[in-house]
């Protein structure tokens, strides 16, 4: 093989460089290619704790109160009656009173509930912007002393096959509340993304999870 003379080698090098630069420019300029978003992981941020200088004990760094929960949920707080909860909702559920509520059979004690579609619940979407299926809903669970749990049940549909991003956004808002005010848990059951937000003073009820009935 005959080696190319030096000037030609230099020209060929420039040509290769120019081609590479042009290809790079096309990639950069093509909006379809330039706008492929890299997947971004949402990072949920619980409230910080402050440790003493000897690193022996910690306490919550923020001074949150139930008012913060009420602000987040558009007026709901633990212990409200079914009628009061219904009164706060943008779209009222007709005929709500304790005697008329359905029983939640996953609990051993007398726990009752009603539910409302998430898309009718304005503030209870807690600022989430990602899509959810139309049949997603929120269950309001009561013991005799009042509201003790909000349970978000998120499902997909053809327009929004995966409600995971919305679940993460909603869960993230409650994770930012002190554990002593609202205990939030995220799990999956029966093809649903479920976020339970529970009154920490509700005793054994805090540990019970919903499972769909086998059909």
């Amino acid at each position, binding site marked *: 093989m005959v080696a190319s003379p030096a000037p030609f080698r230099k020209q060929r090098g420039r040509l290769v460089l120019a081609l590479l630069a042009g290809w790079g420019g096309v990639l950069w300029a093509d909006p379809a290619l330039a706008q492929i978003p890299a*997947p971004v992981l949402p990072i*949920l941020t*619980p409230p*910080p704790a402050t440790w003493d200088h000897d*690193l022996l004990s910690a306490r919550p760094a923020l001074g949150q109160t139930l008012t913060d929960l009420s602000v987040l949920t558009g007026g709901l707080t633990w212990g409200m009656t079914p009628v009061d909860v219904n009164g706060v909702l943008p779209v009222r559920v007709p005929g709500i009173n304790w005697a008329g509520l359905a029983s939640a059979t996953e609990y051993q004690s007398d726990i009752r509930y009603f539910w409302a579609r998430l898309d009718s619940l304005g503030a209870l979407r807690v600022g989430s912007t990602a899509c959810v299926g139309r049949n997603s809903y929120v269950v309001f669970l009561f013991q005799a002393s009042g509201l003790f749990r909000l349970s978000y049940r998120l499902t997909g549909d053809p327009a929004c096959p995966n409600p995971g991003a919305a679940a993460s956004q909603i869960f993230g808002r409650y994770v930012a509340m002190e*554990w002593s005010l609202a205990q939030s*848990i995220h799990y999956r059951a029966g093809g649903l993304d479920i976020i339970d937000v529970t009154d920490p003073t509700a005793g054994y009820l805090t540990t019970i*999870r919903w499972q769909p009935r086998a059909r």
Partner: protein
Amino acid sequence: MIRSLVGAVAGLLLAMPACQAAALSFGIDDAPPPIVLDTTKPRLCTIGWLVADTATNDLFLARMQVAPALNEKPAGGSLPCPTEVPPRMAARALDVCLARATDAKTCVFGDMTRGFLDRPDVRNSAENGSRCASDLYRYIGIACWRSGDINVCNVGCGRTDLEARGTAQGRCESKHQKSCTITGSSEILAPQ
């Protein structure tokens, strides 16, 4: 003459600040005065851990602030962090996930070893690789690749968002020999 003198004195009185000041009211309905933050005050040392729930792929940033010693001096605007982190602090960081997961076995530190896929539990995740301290870095980042339903990740620290994610990505790609394009980052310090 007297009339013009009275006029001049009246004009002088009206020009005095005491006449211009509006009456102050102290009603109980008044809004509280604004809180002015001392933005020059050095921020507490904050150590951040990334912990993950592998059942839902939720990722938590557990932040632990450390109270300064009495005579501790800030360096570069931030208070120094302890050089040794006791296990109870790391355990408390993992608690952030344990409290919010339905199965304790699915809570792991964000920095995962090569054997994580074979045994995805906390023993195959590294506590010390999952933390960043605010006296050295501003951001904590993570980079992952997806294997089925599980994100396999590594953590990196950085002075910028890009540096933290880049460090995490480099660690993830060299450790797992995969393309770790799923990334995220957060500031280590909690918002003031």
